[in-house]
């Protein structure tokens, strides 16, 4: 019995030590992709703050596993290494990241934008019009094909 317990304990600690690094999505929106290619199929949309388990690196891409166990690719510029451990992937265990805390303490944030809205010298209404433009991957792929681009 003691030997079994020892073995179980060993296995558990080994798994903990060898567990993949945790990455956190740092952009507002991204996609878990089927291939290391922006134009490949999206397996799942991802929001800022979503945690991913790093499986392996492939050039500028990471093969990762999301909270529901789905494996896919994300570009390295969309994620940052998380300071939290693997348990942070479990939904419901959310906490402010170090980055978020740093952001809260600085002035370049939504709160200050709200204060500037309506001020002379700032036209945020038109900024919103500009930011509403989003190009779907299917449209982009068709545009690339039609224009014989890469």
């Amino acid at each position: 019995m003691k030997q079994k317990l020892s073995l179980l304990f060993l296995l558990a600690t080994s798994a903990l030590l060898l567990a993949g690094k945790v990455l956190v999505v740092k952009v507002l929106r991204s996609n878990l992709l089927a291939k290391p290619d922006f134009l490949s199929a999206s397996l799942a949309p991802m929001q800022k703050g979503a945690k991913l388990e790093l499986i392996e690196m492939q050039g500028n891409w990471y093969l990762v596993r999301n909270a529901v166990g789905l494996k896919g690719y994300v570009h390295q510029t969309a994620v940052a290494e998380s300071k939290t451990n693997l348990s942070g992937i479990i939904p419901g265990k959310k906490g402010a990241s170090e980055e978020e805390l740093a952001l809260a303490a600085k002035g370049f944030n939504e709160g200050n934008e709200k204060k500037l809205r309506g001020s002379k010298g700032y036209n945020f209404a038109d900024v919103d019009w500009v930011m509403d433009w989003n190009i779907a991957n299917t449209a982009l792929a068709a545009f690339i094909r039609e224009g014989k681009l890469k």
Partner: protein
Amino acid sequence: MKKLLLICLCFFLLSWKPPINLSKLSKAKKGLELVSGAAHKISEEEEYYIGRAVTANILSQYPLWKNSEVTRYLNLIGKVLALKSARPEIFAGYHFCLLDSDEPNAFSAPGGIILLTRGIVAMAENEDELAAILAHEIQHVVAKDPLKAIKSQRLKALGTFAAGEAIGSSDQVLNIFQDSIMDISGTLLQKGYSRKQEKNADLGAIELLKAAGYDPQALLAMLQKVKAIEKKKAKAFSAHPSASKRIAYVEDNLDQGSVKSGKSSRLPRFNRFVSRPKN
């Protein structure tokens, strides 16, 4: 049992870290930011809000041209290029828009908002030349050149606040925010980037055009047009180094022979969207 205890001890020693005061550590870290205060310390989300405010400031001086067809076309070209850049994923994605001004100019705000005047779009004779302008501006975003326009004293002041009590959105911080916006707007609209920054953006644009399948010679073609109008319109590209100098180093870095394939297949859509834009 001894083995189990030994394993427990090893694991404890491996995982144990000396107790630290997280609050003090956090303040110390922020204090370090006070000393360094470099542009790269600004997070992607902060860059996004700075970029929005800079764009809002530019759009208070230049009216936005809300032409959906041309704006969509610009966003398609820009996105193709951005995905080939060293920074394909940016906080809220790249966005491209048009300014209703005949003055030929282009600006890149932090966070990937790129603004082109009607004047500069009208100078392009094909999609590749339009792509060359966008590629140059994307490279400024990739290099975070707009953020580097923020005077270091602003970031140092923010670091000072951050190292102390929680500051939220105090008036002092708002002033720093506004001053930072003016630093960037001043650089974009008047002062201009350094010659080194412009050269890097041009050379990076060549690589970006190649990677996306556009003809990099298009950059040279655009610069030659700029050179032709430079003497006539002093205000045009006033924030850039002279076109002659740019042409010299771009020529040195272009491979002989242009990429012809596919160029003609892009001409119909260019003519459809740009040559006769609908208001």
